[in-house]
């Protein structure tokens, strides 16, 4: 991993996240590394390191966090968050960082595709006539093709 310079630190970014009642407690982290020690993704790919993400956040490395790939390797399993002795909501924080990265257009194709599908269909998979035929054959009730109310709710969202 490349070295960062404290001159790149973005304090406004840190303060903005710190203001959230919900995920703002990340400064409580005393870098014990319990998060990384239990992480199932770290076990198979050492590049992914939740403790590093927490340090980068505290130090205000906004660009590296939001333009890099690291946060997108989080499997959302909550192991780090459940194990954290300081009850830092690590997984919830990383999820919020993924949202911020999405706004900066740093988002894996699979994730943006799901977002588009939900806007268009209100569900990820359309249930077509063929699916409903298979369902009927198995004795299962038919389902509507799209979810109209959900579509309507997401219509005006970015």
């Amino acid at each position, binding site marked *: 991993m490349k070295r960062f310079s404290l001159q790149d630190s973005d304090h406004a970014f840190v303060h903005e996240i710190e203001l959230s009642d919900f995920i703002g407690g990340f400064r409580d982290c005393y870098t014990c590394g319990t998060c990384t020690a239990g992480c199932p993704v770290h076990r198979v790919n050492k590049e992914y390191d939740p403790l590093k993400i927490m340090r980068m956040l505290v130090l205000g490395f906004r660009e590296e966090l939001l333009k890099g790939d690291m946060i997108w390797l989080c499997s*959302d399993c909550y192991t780090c968050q*459940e194990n954290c002795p300081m009850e830092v909501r690590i997984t919830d924080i990383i999820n919020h960082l993924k949202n911020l990265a999405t706004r900066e257009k740093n988002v894996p194709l699979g994730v943006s595709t799901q977002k588009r599908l939900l806007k268009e269909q209100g569900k990820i998979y359309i249930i077509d006539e063929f699916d409903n035929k298979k369902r009927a054959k*198995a004795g299962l009730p038919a389902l509507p093709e799209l979810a109209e109310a959900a579509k309507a709710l997401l219509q005006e*969202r970015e």
Partner: protein
Amino acid sequence: MEYGLFLGCTIPARSRNYELAARAVASSLGVKLIDIEEFSCCGFPLEASDEQGAVLLGAMNLCVAEERGLDICVLCSACASMLTKTAYHLDHDRKLRDQVNRELLKIGKEYKGKAQAKHFARILLEDVGLAGIKNQVKRDLKGLKVATHYGCHYLKPSYIYEGFDDPQDPRTLEVILEAVGATNVQYRRKKDCCGGPVLLSDEKVALSVAEEKLKQVRDVGADCMNLVCPFCSLMFDANQKGIEGNSGNEFNLPVLYLPQIMGLAFGFSRKELGLNLNSVSTKELESAFEE
């Protein structure tokens, strides 16, 4: 016991085996599952890219159940966690609730906080109970050795689940298996993730996470794996052949949904439980306790 049945996106399209088995088991235990066409995506797939949008979808689904005076039975762990988390936030954050309700007004809905979403397994445990489950057992599973994969969102984040099970030492799925006559086997990495959510960003990493777990389960000699989420099933069952091909490992490990194992003990047929739809064949396992 009446619940609105929440299928979500993946189950009706990809996991009819889970749906079939859950409906069969629920009906034999007197749990009435009501189909509601108006349910949509739970919001989970939006959490990483549009967290407010995710909460909106979660809230909409909770409203749909609330309007019918029903609680929700959820089969998918990701859906269960999204709906439970949404209710948690809306019930604890007045400002968020007002903001969400302003949006919901556009489709004529209002969140009041009356409907609770519960995972299918939680309903079996809390509403039916182990005695009721034991009563339905008609076939001896003869100590079928099962390795349970709890998965993540069935238990976590724990702050939303109000003390249901212990994410550090989960028991709820294994006590159900014990009640139907299966034998629980323990293995390393039992609490680890299936890797599923990483599939969207890095397939290699996702499959490596699943492979780690399959190795541990194989090494303790389990007859099959037990799980309660269609994403976990995708990783361990549907992707098992691919993982074997990439890694040179051989697993040949049947992966069953909890109600498929329960259904076998209750005397349901292979077809009624959708076992013919599982990717890794379950035939050998079934023949071990056929009369």
